């Protein structure tokens, strides 16, 4: 039923009428609500929406923001219902399509997110929300050039959109252009201090440019706001733990890597990193356990088999288990190193 409704929605090309009388007088407050939702200031948004819904019971935009609020609070069914209600009645509103598309993206329903983001940009090629979502989806599809174009356009239209800044930052991060990445992640984190992902990426790139104090501060800020929700970063503890190990704060590193294996136990990289730390701490039994868990993980997280074999060969050599040490030494020798990019 809902699928049919969505198809109809995507097929609709009638121009969306501007909010007219029902919202008249509420424009400024609605704008503030939207910004509050963007920066995850949910209590402010909720209170304002409650008051607005009394004063403007027929204003459709309130429904849209209620949907966003429900989404942010994890009330998925309620959010879906509100999005459908809004887009059914306002099929020409690019923002409605874009926010609904982001909802599907967060639910990992990529097909719908793709379709809605395309429809949103089609409706209004100058809507920053639509451009950001579409740009992000292009990036996910590996079309980084197209994604970058849309994100840059979105930022021109609305420099204060934290998601646009964040997504553009990821492009530079991927391209190893750390200085530019820092610029965008810093803006993203400043515009939305609740975005733990932005702090994490900012920290990673500050380390690359050599600003170690800034790195430390960014991690601290990220850790302060890293809560469940759309801005949660499952790898913040992992990355901070690695950073602390480089700075020889091994106990601090252990604390965060312990949390990392709790928050992302399915990912090889977190176990691998903790096993490396165990080795430095000369806790070889724990290193063995962690390295074997890393070995068993199917989600690599960027850690390849060669790294696991090399680590296990060292672990078992340290433990004096010559048979297993030899097994993994042989595997290390037999496994070719990765072929990196064409150029240095």
């Amino acid at each position, binding site marked *: 039923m809902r699928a049919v409704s969505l198809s109809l929605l995507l097929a609709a090309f009638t121009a969306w009428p501007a909010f007219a009388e029902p919202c008249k007088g509420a424009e400024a407050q609605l704008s503030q609500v939207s910004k509050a939702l963007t920066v995850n200031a949910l209590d402010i948004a909720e209170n304002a929406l409650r008051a607005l819904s009394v004063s403007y019971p027929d204003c459709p935009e309130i429904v849209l923001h209620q949907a966003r609020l429900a989404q942010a609070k994890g009330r998925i069914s309620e959010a879906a219902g509100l999005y459908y209600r809004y887009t059914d009645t306002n099929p020409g509103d690019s923002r409605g399509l874009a926010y609904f598309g982001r909802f599907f993206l967060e639910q990992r329903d990529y097909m719908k997110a793709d379709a809605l983001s395309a429809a949103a940009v089609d409706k209004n090629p100058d809507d920053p929300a639509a451009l950001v979502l579409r740009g992000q989806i292009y990036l996910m599809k590996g079309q980084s050039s197209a994604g970058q174009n849309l994100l840059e356009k979105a930022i021109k239209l609305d420099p204060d959109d934290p998601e646009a800044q964040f997504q553009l930052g990821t492009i530079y991060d991927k391209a190893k252009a750390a200085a530019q990445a820092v610029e965008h992640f810093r803006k993203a984190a400043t515009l939305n201090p609740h975005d733990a992902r932005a702090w994490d990426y900012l920290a990673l790139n500050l380390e690359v440019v050599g600003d170690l104090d800034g790195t430390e501060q960014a991690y601290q800020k990220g850790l302060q706001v890293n809560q469940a929700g759309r801005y949660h970063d499952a790898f913040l503890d992992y990355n901070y733990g690695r950073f602390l190990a480089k700075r*020889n704060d091994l106990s601090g590193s252990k604390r965060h890597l312990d949390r990392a294996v709790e928050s992302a136990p399915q990912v090889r990289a977190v176990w691998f990193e903790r096993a490396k730390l165990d080795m430095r701490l000369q806790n070889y039994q724990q290193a063995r356990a962690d390295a074997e868990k890393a070995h068993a993980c199917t989600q690599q997280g960027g850690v390849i088999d*060669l790294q696991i074999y*090399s680590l296990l060969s060292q672990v078992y*050599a340290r433990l004096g288990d010559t048979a297993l040490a030899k097994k993994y030494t042989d595997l290390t020798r037999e496994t070719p*190193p990765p072929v990196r990019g*064409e150029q*240095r």
Partner: protein
Amino acid sequence: MTPRMVSTVALIVALAALPKVLWGADTGRIQFENRQKGSGINFVLDNGTLPDKPMIDGIPGGVALLDYDNDGYLDIFFTNGASLPGLAKEGDKFSNRLYHNNHDGTFTDVTGRAGLRGEGYSVGAAAADYDNDGRTDLYVTGFNGNFLYHNNGDGTFTDVTAKAGVPGVSSAGKKLWGISAAWLDYDNDGKLDLFVANYLDWSFATSRVCGSPGKRLSCSPTLYKGEPNILYHNNGNGTFTDVSEDMGISRHVGKGMGVAIADYDDDGWMDIFVANDNDRNFLFKNRGGKTFDELGVESFVAYTESGLPVSSMGVDFRDWNNDGKPSLIITALGGETYPLFRNEGNGFFSYESYKAGIGLRSFKMSGWGAGIQDFDNDGYKDLFTANSHVNENADLDGQQHYRQANAVFRNLHDGTFQDMSDDAGPGMQIRAAHRGCAFGDLNHDGKIDVVVSAIGSPAELLYNTSTGGNHWILIKTVGVKSNRDGIGTRIKMTTASGLVQYNHVTTAGSYASSNDPRVHFGLGADTLIKEIELKWPSGIIQVLHNVRADQFLTVNEE
């Protein structure tokens, strides 16, 4: 002033005095001064680069410090590139150079008279007296030709490559791309053998082009196959035999760049470390001169602690923490950090770049030449790296720089190092495309100087002007039963204050370069050495007592 303030001031005063009391060494500053101008050395390394930036153009630049005329002073030899794609030394600008040390800070170009202009695209240099005639000979590696130059003793050299049988070709007859070479007596028979580290199976016919037009970048070595290394056994009659296969060397194919030697397990047989570019490093353990086992993986030096290779370039293999166990530093490219492997003495090495404090500091550096040397003569060896990215267009990436300043890390005596580069004088602030570097005392002041080659800019003569007034000794070994240079001799030094240090005789190490064969020790405040123990390759152990500091000591094997 409150009592609390008084005690704080007293504590600060006490702490300030602590290093001298504890270490018996003046912690003066490490300083280098580039005295190239006016020295008579006008060598500019020419890589013959082409717009497409072929692999070969990033690779050259060896330096050798050798006393070719036995006047007691180190002379300087530079390798040079060639025109591309012809690979010929067309014109003087591609000539290798030999500069004679005039003992007054100036040098004279004696290349022509010496007959060392060279042929083809040269890369590395290794100096030693291979025929035990008391004169230092020279081996030059290259892309399309390796050459052994015999020192005639009259200021000239003769190319004896063909006669000696050391052309650097594989058993199948293919000339391999030689980078670094090391002289060592692997079977302790009193004659120096020769190890050649070879790089890639690359040619202009198979050359790939990377980057975009006008912004070409050096391609990754992972696009090409590696090549086996070569070990030549010295037959003692002016000829050598290729024993690479019999000795277990050539079965291991890598992408060799730097090579260094040390008896890392103190069994009396010299071992060989090869730094492989984007491939696992090799540690060839010498099995009694009969064969070599490659134990890089087993010893944990094949890869970094992350289990991945880096762009290993230069390497040095010496004991930096005075525990008698030679350890490793390797240079790599930006974003990788320089691996520092500490020899635990149990067959394992531990990766300690971060623990030692050079990890985060070297993350942004790209390096070639490398040395573990005591620059401030405080009794603890420091680290030096000659820096530059491989890519001439590296600056297209905002985080990388082609021209970089060199780096020096001071040993803090507790297993850690401090990056002193910014404070080490203007000589250390020169941004250039540095490549090979060699270490030795050029001006007989007891401090280790550095000569650095750089693509497209004058070579640097970094005289060590470190302050502090610490004492020192340089030891020249003369083997009788052992090889005449005494290469491989392990020296244990105990100063009057009880500090014990170790080093060994070698000219190998760094990148494509050859160092002062004399063994240097900083002695801190000690003016007297209680004991010097020399363990010669022949097995002879020789002990000297109560040796005064601040001298050039020649020790004849007996």
